[in-house]
């Protein structure tokens, strides 16, 4: 993982470069933008609409609007292409919630979808039962009850860190350690489950 300042600088430079190239009509740059922001945009839209199909439609629409505008003229803050796309997406969600009519578009929507979903997230291919089984395995592996309690209070009861630390008599550094280790282990368990699932499908 890059250091924060380096990451920000790279992100800004990539963003400026994409905006410039799309403005020149570079189709490869359009595809790069779709690949770069596709998964995040879909996640944001799914979260805001609670409707996976609508979220996919809105993502396509967001790209169509963004590409048409970027082809026509540069944006004010080219180093913040992510913020620009987010703004379009949120406006589309508001519009969808007002049940406005959908735009007809001429862009290749199927290729946008294909390019946007290149990398699945953790547990994307797993069923709810498989995810629950991974959580069960994680809880079983935690050495002390108090560590399980940290996860349950944080993720199930939506308590904040201070309250959890007070209730369990632990400090913030212990809390952070438990959380970090639990998430690392959970990620490994999800990956194991995904591999097993893949083997089941093949055999």
């Amino acid at each position, binding site marked *: 993982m890059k250091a924060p300042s380096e990451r920000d600088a790279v992100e800004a430079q990539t963003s400026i470069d994409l905006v410039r190239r799309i403005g020149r009509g570079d189709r490869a740059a359009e595809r790069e933008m779709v690949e770069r922001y596709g998964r995040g945009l879909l*996640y944001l839209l799914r979260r805001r609409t*609670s409707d996976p199909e609508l979220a996919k439609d809105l993502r396509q629409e967001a790209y169509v609007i963004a590409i048409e505008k970027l082809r026509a003229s540069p944006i004010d803050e080219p180093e913040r292409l992510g913020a620009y796309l987010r703004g379009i997406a949120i406006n589309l969600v508001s519009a969808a919630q007002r049940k406005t009519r959908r735009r007809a578009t001429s862009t290749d929507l199927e290729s946008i979808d294909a390019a946007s979903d290149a990398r699945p997230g953790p*547990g994307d291919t797993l069923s709810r039962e498989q995810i629950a089984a991974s959580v069960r395995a994680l809880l079983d592996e935690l050495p002390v009850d108090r560590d399980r309690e940290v996860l349950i209070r944080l993720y199930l009861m939506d308590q904040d860190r201070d309250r959890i630390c007070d209730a369990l008599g632990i400090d913030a550094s212990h809390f952070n350690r438990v959380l970090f280790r639990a998430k690392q282990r959970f990620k490994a368990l999800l990956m194991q489950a995904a591999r097993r699932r893949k083997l089941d499908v093949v055999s």
Partner: protein
Amino acid sequence: MSMTRQDIERRLVVERYLQGKLTPSEEAAFEETYLGDPDLLDQIELAERLREGLGELALAGELPRSRPRRRLAFLASAPYAAAASVLLAASLLLSTVLYVQNAELRARASGEIPAFRIEPLFATRGDGHVIARPDEGEWIMLMVDPGASDYETYRVTVRPSQPAAAPLVQTSGIEPGYEEALAVGVPGARLVPGDYEVIVEGDADGEWRPVTRLPLHVEAAPQSSAPAR
């Protein structure tokens, strides 16, 4: 403006985002940041899967107890037992409300969790507990108060109150969950209007010992819940 990775970790931004507790400006900055950052998206989705999995286990009554159970001798006396029951009822009600709110939020976010309703059943409710007939496909999650008993595991049976009626649901090996309640899921389609009883038994080394029997009435009227008949 985007957030640094250090900020995100130090301020527990991923978890607060999923809890819906970020301020609008924090939320905008965080969304701008994760939009083009697959590693950060992995972290968010990992935390989300953890929430979903814990929710599934809670629904299935498989979560470990929140704290060690302690049996204090003075609680065996009637006045303390009554006071404890009232406190338990109040705290169970509060936790149930929070649980329902969390579950509804998760259901809205994922669109996948089936409809369910949580109904607490307390020994302190007097003549019984009345619930409205569930919708088709809805699940009723009974949170049963086992009173002052102290078994490691329990068996809960839900059956019509007519003599010799077959049980609708019988679940063994239930450990008390949060607030010491026993969680039992009943398919709503099977809870037709009528009188039922919820029988709780404790596991004494393989032998089921009676703990309590709680009356339950399902009425046809479209209301969510009524306190007592």
